[in-house]
């Protein structure tokens, strides 16, 4: 369906120097700064997949999406979507895709929302029957009716986003690109948007690629995630696998009756394991023990029974590490890894 092959993008800009004298110097200097935004990324996406494309700010997410949609031409490598190379045949590719940029609307700002749909019907050559059927479906999942006749500029962010999503789907695209579709929305609207995206994927088998900073989007929607950092792909696989590899840490918080002996309590010595594998902290203010451990090493019931022997337990909360923490951890390990290999490179030289 979509094949991204060794795609890279460099941005070249003239070198800038600080200060006024620097600005003048910059005018005459021919030095260039090359920013490597995307570096040799490859992946394959099948029809009907929902793929989360994540990374920190400036990691190269939007740049990749822009290359896949035909806005930018890659510096090297290529992308083939439905047999079409977007940078060679932009118009043909544009017919197959729908795009929503969370921070930039594609609707006609000063016109009522329904006018935007009328124009898009013409642009994408949607037949009258298809139009009626599609509008009925979009109304069902996105509730567009209530603000259809209001100018786009008067819509709330949530309404505008629903409008944008509807507009991107009117021509039943094979691939839907969503760049931060839930940014700035409240929880209820976020939830509705996610449900709508899911339904569209089920109904029409639309392939969906979304970038987001919202871990909720990923947990709710994506069966696969790709993580990039500094322009390189650092993870590609299922959410479960990711959690399995990186998210084996668990945390239990146990509220107990006040007891001074807990201050010096060490769970690791009681369970006969090394202290790194099981970290215990006692919060004296709230009388709570926080235990962080690796679920592959120790079983939760072992910990609970050990503590219950010691103290009167009032409440127990078990937390699974959330994805945000996992992603943070990956960034840290990858960066450490890069630094490590850089050091090795230097040694070799």
């Amino acid at each position: 369906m979509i094949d991204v092959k060794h795609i890279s993008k460099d941005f070249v800009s003239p070198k800038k120097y600080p200060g006024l004298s620097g600005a003048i110097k910059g005018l005459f200097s021919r030095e260039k700064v090359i920013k490597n935004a995307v570096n040799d990324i490859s992946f394959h996406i099948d029809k009907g997949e929902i793929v989360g494309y994540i990374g920190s700010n400036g990691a190269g997410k939007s740049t990749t999406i822009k290359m896949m949609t035909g806005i930018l031409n890659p510096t090297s490598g290529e992308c083939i979507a439905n047999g079409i190379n977007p940078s060679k045949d932009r118009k043909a590719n544009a017919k197959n895709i729908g795009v929503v940029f969370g921070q930039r609307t594609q609707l006609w700002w000063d016109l009522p929302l329904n006018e935007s749909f009328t124009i898009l019907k013409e642009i994408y050559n949607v037949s009258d029957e298809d139009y009626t059927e599609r509008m009925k479906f979009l109304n069902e999942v996105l509730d567009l009716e209530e603000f259809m006749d209001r100018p786009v500029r008067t819509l709330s962010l949530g309404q505008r986003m629903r409008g944008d999503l509807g507009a991107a789907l009117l021509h039943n695209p094979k691939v839907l690109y969503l760049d931060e579709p839930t940014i700035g929305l409240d929880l209820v609207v976020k939830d509705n948007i996610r449900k709508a995206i899911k339904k569209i994927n089920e109904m029409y088998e639309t392939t969906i690629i979304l970038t987001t900073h919202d871990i909720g989007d990923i947990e709710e929607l994506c069966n696969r995630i790709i993580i990039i950092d500094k322009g390189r792909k650092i993870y590609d696989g299922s959410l479960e696998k990711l959690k399995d590899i990186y998210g084996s840490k668990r945390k239990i918080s146990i509220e107990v009756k006040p007891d001074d002996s807990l201050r010096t309590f060490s769970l690791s010595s009681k369970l006969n394991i090394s202290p790194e594998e099981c970290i215990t902290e006692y919060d004296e203010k709230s009388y709570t023990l926080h235990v962080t451990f690796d679920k592959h090493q120790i079983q939760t019931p072992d910990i609970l029974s050990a503590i219950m022997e010691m103290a009167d337990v009032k409440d127990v909360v078990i937390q699974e590490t959330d994805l945000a923490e996992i992603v943070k951890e990956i960034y840290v390990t990858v960066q450490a890894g890069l630094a490590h290999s850089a050091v090795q490179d230097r040694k070799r030289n």
Partner: protein
Amino acid sequence: MNTLKRYLRLYRVLVSQFLKTIMQSKVDFLMGLLGFFFTQIMGIAFLYLVFEQIPSLQGWSLNQLIFIYGFAQIPRGIDHLFTDNIWMIAWRIVINGDFDRYMLRPMNLFFQVIAEKLQPDALGELLVGTLLLIYSLSKGIVIVDALHIGLFLVSIFAGAIIYTSIKLFFASIAFWVKISGPFLQVAYEMADFAKYPTEIYARAIRFIITWIIPFAFVAYLPASFFLKETVSGWIIGIECLIALVFWCIAYALFKKGTSIYESAGN
């Protein structure tokens, strides 16, 4: 043929949306219209005062000057009316990344740029141009027959293309330098020279507006064919050739520019 039909249909749809947009705010629209009429009346009054002081200029009579001036307004007005949105490439839509929107739609990029807007102000130029032409025609200084009317229409069309090409050329530089408005401004202001006989200018300026940024070919040179028997009709042919060459260069630059377009970060 089908493609042409489709684009004509799309043009109608997009332009009617634009008209709806400007009419959404009725007060603004009426005020704009009123202001536009005042500007035009002032413009005509100013012209009258200027021309009253100049009985003749380098061998051109007042009526002939009025013909040249009016002739210059028409291709400029046509270009202004239909392709004014090209200015936005030079000033805004490349640097702020709004050009993305065009890249995502299955339509020709140049078409999308010009179909987004009509410039109603241009109606003033067209109106003034036509009035001045009618006035000078009534003085019997030009031959009116089928051949001359035909050549006149061809010349106006070619002149408008030259205007559009020059605008597109300088606006497309924005794909490399992000904002090319100042360059376009300078080039476009040269067009004001075309309203008068080029003999009145210094040699350097005459050279520039004839051979580098050929505004002399959109008004003064073809107008002299209609006014003076000594100038051959081939001047219109040369004008068409210049229009074709400039259009090809400008469009090629625009195409190249869109291929290196860098968008903007969020």
